[in-house]
């Protein structure tokens, strides 16, 4: 049989992406919640010396899609299924539910192999599956796998050649009866008393015990992000930059061209370089993204990765479902929201787990307007932090109020209703450390690829514009709005405007300016709200149609300058 490609298909959260990275050697993000993969990933592997394409398809419960990620799955199957072998990845601890998709696939006559993944967990749960018997009943090869350790993967590759269309015949209306029959023949479950893990699984979704647990988990997470972030700055990044400083100073002495000097080093104060304020490519351009933002990005995604891989996020989704409903969303929106606190780009991408366009519009707008990414949070901590913890708390309270009220209003004003929560609650799992670190690395790479070019471009632009005196014109143009309406100092205009490109550039431009507490609060609120950043904007542009995008930009500008002006009056 000709095999041109392999499609990995299965229910959400069964480990398709882990199998994918085992087969192809490609790194992909995996977590313990449904909907981590929202877009397909392509890779390739060699079978008998021949290159075969492997596609990791977003998870779906059935071939009748109910959200965008599932739509992607079904479309892929229709378009690429013709000369493909389907590897149906099955969570063997949930054989019964997973077999539904298996049977649907059989109805469509795809040549397939079934991978009973998470095989190791069945033993712990007292589930015994006779997979040889299952193979006989279905008429397709069945392999037991533990993707995370690589067990059974070789076997799976071996069986690909024997992929078959199966021989099961049944009427669609009686699918569940058929599944019941199969399961009673191949599976035996020992009765077990609930383990402490299962008790915790239930306790963390019950409102009475779940809410205190959630508060503790979130406080601990915040605490660890700070500790790890500060640790990285003090022990890794600051020492690195101290070691790098003499090199820059020597280079500064070597360059004779004033213009080049200005672009590379920026403002040199009496032969001293200030990494935070000099604003040159080799000084501030490197220091701000690497030493001020990156450490917290690392810390944030490390902690978030643990929350993701243990399976805690869906529980948070259930607890917060009520709140999200008031905003026209539902609990699943916790995923884009939390990811957005790191960087808005992955946050925006993950809005695909929401079912309707209306939900995605609201989620993207709220994300861009009121969820500060790490760069924005750094601004808040550095700029407003001078005035103490309470001032910082004020900024976050303002953003929360904006988040709630904009969401509430959008939900009231936009046509249509919002679908309800529909989410699988996975069991708790111990994070698989190599996987966790790999995921962290992928996300850091994303950040670097997005951040560094924009920061460099921004620093370059600022220097050019200064040199050619364009900035004073820009300043004068926006001055009435920024100084007049928002009450911010004249010098801050350029920094605020540059925030369009990246927030880190804005930070380094605002740092040297003397601002009162009120001005610092308004400046950081405005920077967090009026525009996400170029990279996020591009994603939003891809996710929404042009009309929605214009609507969104209008909402962002209107709300942020209304709020800014209001703060200027009352603070």
């Amino acid at each position: 049989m000709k095999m041109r490609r392999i499609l990995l298909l299965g229910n959400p959260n069964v480990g398709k992406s882990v199998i994918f990275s085992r087969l192809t050697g490609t790194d992909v993000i995996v977590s313990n919640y449904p909907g981590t993969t929202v877009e397909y990933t392509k890779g390739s592997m060699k079978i008998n010396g021949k290159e075969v394409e492997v596609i990791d398809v977003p998870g779906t419960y059935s071939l009748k899609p109910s959200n965008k990620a599932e739509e992607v799955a079904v479309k892929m199957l229709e378009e690429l299924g013709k000369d493909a072998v389907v590897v149906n990845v099955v969570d063997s601890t949930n054989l019964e539910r997973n077999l539904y998709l298996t049977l649907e696939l059989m109805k469509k006559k795809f040549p397939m192999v079934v991978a009973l993944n998470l095989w190791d967990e069945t033993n712990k749960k007292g589930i015994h599956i006779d997979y040889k018997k299952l193979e006989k009943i279905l008429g397709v090869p069945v392999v037991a796998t533990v993707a995370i350790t690589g067990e059974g993967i070789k076997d799976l590759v071996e069986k690909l050649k024997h992929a078959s269309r199966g021989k099961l015949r049944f009427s669609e209306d009686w699918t569940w009866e058929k599944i019941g029959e199969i399961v009673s023949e191949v599976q035996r479950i020992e009765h077990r008393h609930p383990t402490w893990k299962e008790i915790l699984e239930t306790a963390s979704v019950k409102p009475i015990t779940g809410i205190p647990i959630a508060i503790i988990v979130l406080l601990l997470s915040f605490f660890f992000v700070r500790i790890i972030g500060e640790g990285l700055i003090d022990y890794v990044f600051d020492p690195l930059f101290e070691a790098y400083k003499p090199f820059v100073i020597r280079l500064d002495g070597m360059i004779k061209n004033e213009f080049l000097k200005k672009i590379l080093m920026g403002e040199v104060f009496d032969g001293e370089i200030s990494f935070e304020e000099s604003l040159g490519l080799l000084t501030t351009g490197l220091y701000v993204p690497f030493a001020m933002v990156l450490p917290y990005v690392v810390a944030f995604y490390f902690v978030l990765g643990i929350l993701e891989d243990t399976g805690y996020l869906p529980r948070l989704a259930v607890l917060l479902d009520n709140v999200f409903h008031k905003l026209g969303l539902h609990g699943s929106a916790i995923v884009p929201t939390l990811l957005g606190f790191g960087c808005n780009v992955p946050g925006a991408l993950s809005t695909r787990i929401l079912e309707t366009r209306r939900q995605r519009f609201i989620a993207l707008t709220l994300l861009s307007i009121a969820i500060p990414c790490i760069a924005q949070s750094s601004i808040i901590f550095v700029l407003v932090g001078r005035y103490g913890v309470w001032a910082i708390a004020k900024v976050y309270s303002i953003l929360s109020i904006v988040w709630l009220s904009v969401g509430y209003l959008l939900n009231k004003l936009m046509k249509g209703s919002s679908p309800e929560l529909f989410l699988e609650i996975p069991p708790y799992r111990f994070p698989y450390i190599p996987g966790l670190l790999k995921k962290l690395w992928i996300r850091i790479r994303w950040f670097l690829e997005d951040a560094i070019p924009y920061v460099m471009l921004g620093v370059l632009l600022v220097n050019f514009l200064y040199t050619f005196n364009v900035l004073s014109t820009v300043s004068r143009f926006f001055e009435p709005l920024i100084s007049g309406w928002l009450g911010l100092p004249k010098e801050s205009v350029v920094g605020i405007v540059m925030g369009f490109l990246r927030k880190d550039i804005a930070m380094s431009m605002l740092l040297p300016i003397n601002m009162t507490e009120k001005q610092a609060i308004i400046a950081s609120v405005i920077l967090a709200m009026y525009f996400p950043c170029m990279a996020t904007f591009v994603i939003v542009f891809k996710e929404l149609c042009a009309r929605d995008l214009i609507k969104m930009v209008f909402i962002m500008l209107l709300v942020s300058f209304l709020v800014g002006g209001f703060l200027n009056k009352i603070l």
Partner: protein
Amino acid sequence: MKIDLLRAPLGRDVIVIDVVGGICLKQRLFALGIVPGKKIKKVVQHPMGGPIIVEINGSRFALGRGMASKVIVEV
């Protein structure tokens, strides 16, 4: 006694009798095995319009109120 899932007792196995909803909801629940004749257990119910959590075929799902109210069970 036939009641909807919202009013079903917590922590007890009940039998699904019917799903009274549109075709979309039926299909969605069908794919999970929430079909007439199946055993289902409500494990958690959140107050104030919050979701409920059910156990079906050994896995747990959070469902919104509206959905839950359309699942009719026999106690």
